[in-house]
């Protein structure tokens, strides 16, 4: 008897979707793309990402970190496509059945889905303003760069029209739903969304490796090719599909989580990087909201333009935003006088707040800046959890077809904190005043212990 094949290889939607073009990526090798995708890649709204650095002023710590959002977005498109193709090859029939339930995907579900995944990867960060995340809370008041991404993708006057012309009427709306997720996204698209941004997604897989490559560190490397090969689908209760991992991929998945933890501690939340993020925020905040109060103003500022202005304003001297500009130009930063452990809890934050008050009382001539760096590392359900709300029971599939949740089979994941969180206090002490720096650090350590904190 002949077995029924699950293999599917999606057709291209049109001749303009055949990947004729290619570009060399330092991490993934050649990335191929189509004529329709070229129109988006060359569109001025996307092109501006060539001039927005992935890691803002991290080059002040790791000089190689001058890479851009442009190459990251191409990388995410490539990795998301590889993951989709793997699922189509091994579980295509199931994926097709699931996607057909969405009105817009009823005809050619896999071909449209593949194009959606590629474009979601390509455009997931298109809303980033200058210096990426660093000054985001000041520049994108309210919804952050993600809300701006949705606007750029969905609205006709930005990329909406181009997307609808290249693919079909309504494509931009569908892509917007996929990027937004939650209640506005058909639940059948969740598997596609998770390929781009989920627990083992293309976004993280790309930025961890790319940022490692450019920073010259090894922390972010893991065997992503193995992970893609081990991707699977699982039918949850009620018939919904979810991304799963074959048992053989458990160690590379653990390596991904460890990479995430170490990149956060060593690169993304490095103390010097954090203080320059603060300067950028202060610089833009003091310039005033009017510099970024419209979509056009946000789109017309790249790192290059903003940095040229920062250098000019640093020349003008102290006072107002000029003083922050001068600090950035001169790499003249505040120094850490207090730092909690990397898994600070609410009590540690509270003690750090009290310490800040004491420092200000005792050293009124010194400027102190508080900072809390916090990032989720994973949200996987573990056996010791008594409450599953907010956690993900990522399915792990055995060769027999039996499934467990991944957290129940990984001893390593149970040892990695779910959240990286550190509170710091910086002080403005000149480089040549080592004595004062020592005095304040010693005072801070003693006071923090008296408050009940553990350094």
């Amino acid at each position, binding site marked *: 008897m002949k077995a029924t094949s699950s293999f599917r290889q999606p057709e291209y939607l049109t001749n303009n979707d055949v990947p004729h073009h290619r570009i060399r990526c330092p991490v993934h090798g050649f990335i191929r793309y189509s004529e329709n995708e070229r129109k988006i890649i060359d569109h001025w709204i996307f092109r501006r990402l060539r001039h927005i650095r992935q890691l803002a002023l991290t080059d002040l710590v790791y000089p190689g970190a001058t890479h851009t959002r442009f190459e990251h977005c191409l990388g995410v498109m490539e990795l998301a496509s590889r993951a989709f193709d793997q699922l189509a090859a091994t579980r295509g029939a199931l994926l097709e059945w699931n996607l057909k*339930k*969405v*009105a*817009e995907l009823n005809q050619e579900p896999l071909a449209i889905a593949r194009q959606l995944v590629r474009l979601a990867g390509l455009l997931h960060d298109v809303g980033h303003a200058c210096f990426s995340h660093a000054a985001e*809370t000041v520049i994108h*008041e*309210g*919804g*952050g760069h*993600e*809300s701006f991404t949705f606007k750029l993708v969905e609205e006709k006057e930005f990329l909406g029209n181009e997307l609808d012309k290249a693919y079909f009427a309504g494509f931009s709306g569908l892509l917007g*739903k996929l990027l937004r*997720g*939650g*209640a*506005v*996204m*058909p*639940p*059948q698209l969740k598997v596609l969304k998770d390929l781009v941004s989920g627990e083992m997604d293309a976004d993280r897989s790309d930025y961890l490796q790319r940022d490692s490559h450019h920073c010259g560190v090894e922390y972010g490397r893991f065997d992503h090719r193995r992970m893609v090969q081990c991707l699977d689908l699982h039918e949850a209760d*009620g018939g*919904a599909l979810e991304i799963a991992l074959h048992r053989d991929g458990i160690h590379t998945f653990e390596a991904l989580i460890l990479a995430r933890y170490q990149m956060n501690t060593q690169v993304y939340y490095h103390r010097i990087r954090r203080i320059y993020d603060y300067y950028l925020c202060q610089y833009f905040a003091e310039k005033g909201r009017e510099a970024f109060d419209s979509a056009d103003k946000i789109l017309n500022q790249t790192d290059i333009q903003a940095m040229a202005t920062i250098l000019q304003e640093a020349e003008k001297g102290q006072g107002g935003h000029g003083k922050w500009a001068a600090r950035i130009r001169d790499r003249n930063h505040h120094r850490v006088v207090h730092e909690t452990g990397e898994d600070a809890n*609410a*009590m540690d*934050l*509270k003690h*750090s*707040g009290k310490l*800040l*008050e004491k420092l*200000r009382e005792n050293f009124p001539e010194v400027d102190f800046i*508080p*900072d*809390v760096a*916090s990032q*989720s590392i994973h*949200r996987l359900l573990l056996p010791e959890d008594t409450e*599953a*709300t*907010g956690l993900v029971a990522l399915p792990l599939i055995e060769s027999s077809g039996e499934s467990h949740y991944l957290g129940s089979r990984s001893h390593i994941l149970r040892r990695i904190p779910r*959240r990286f969180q550190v*509170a710091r206090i910086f002080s403005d002490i000149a480089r040549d005043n080592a004595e004062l720096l020592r005095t304040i650090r010693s005072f801070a350590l003693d006071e923090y212990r008296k408050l009940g904190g553990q350094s």
Partner: protein
Amino acid sequence: MSLFLSGTWEHALLAQVVKEAADVAQRDGGYLGRTAIQKIVYFLQVLDVPMRYRFEVFHYGPFCNTILGDTEWLMADEVIADSSPNPDKYSKFTPGPACEELIAKHAAMLERYEGTVKSTVKALLPLQPDHLELIATLDYAFREMKATLGKEPPKQKVLARFREFKGAKFNDKEIADTYDRLKAAGLFG
């Protein structure tokens, strides 16, 4: 007081919700617990208040893990307090000594959404946590089905999706009646 946390827009929004809830509770009773704050913020997002919170359906309906973490931060920074006599069992969030300081940092933007925050808190705070869970999950199911079908979904499809989320926790009549009331109130626009 001096705030230790950066005081993002989302932190200020939570502080404003807690402050508003304290006013409503004083007039009309009720309290702002862990379920209520999640559902109120969920509906604020439905009503187009900008925020970076992302909701998914879990056991108690639409839920955002980040809100849970942020309330802990706000308590550590004394922006809000948990005045519950039994905080292990339930929370009762009230404004803390640093609440006004954080609100003042985002006064202009909070003013823009003041009416929406006031009316949402006023409408939802008196409801029991179970009822909040029911209406928020129904709303979520409606929006998901609308996105799937590309048009307004039939009532039965929404109720079936609700059942997938909630199993037998609520009875059929209760769900159907609540659906009708939400529709009549224009929430499923």
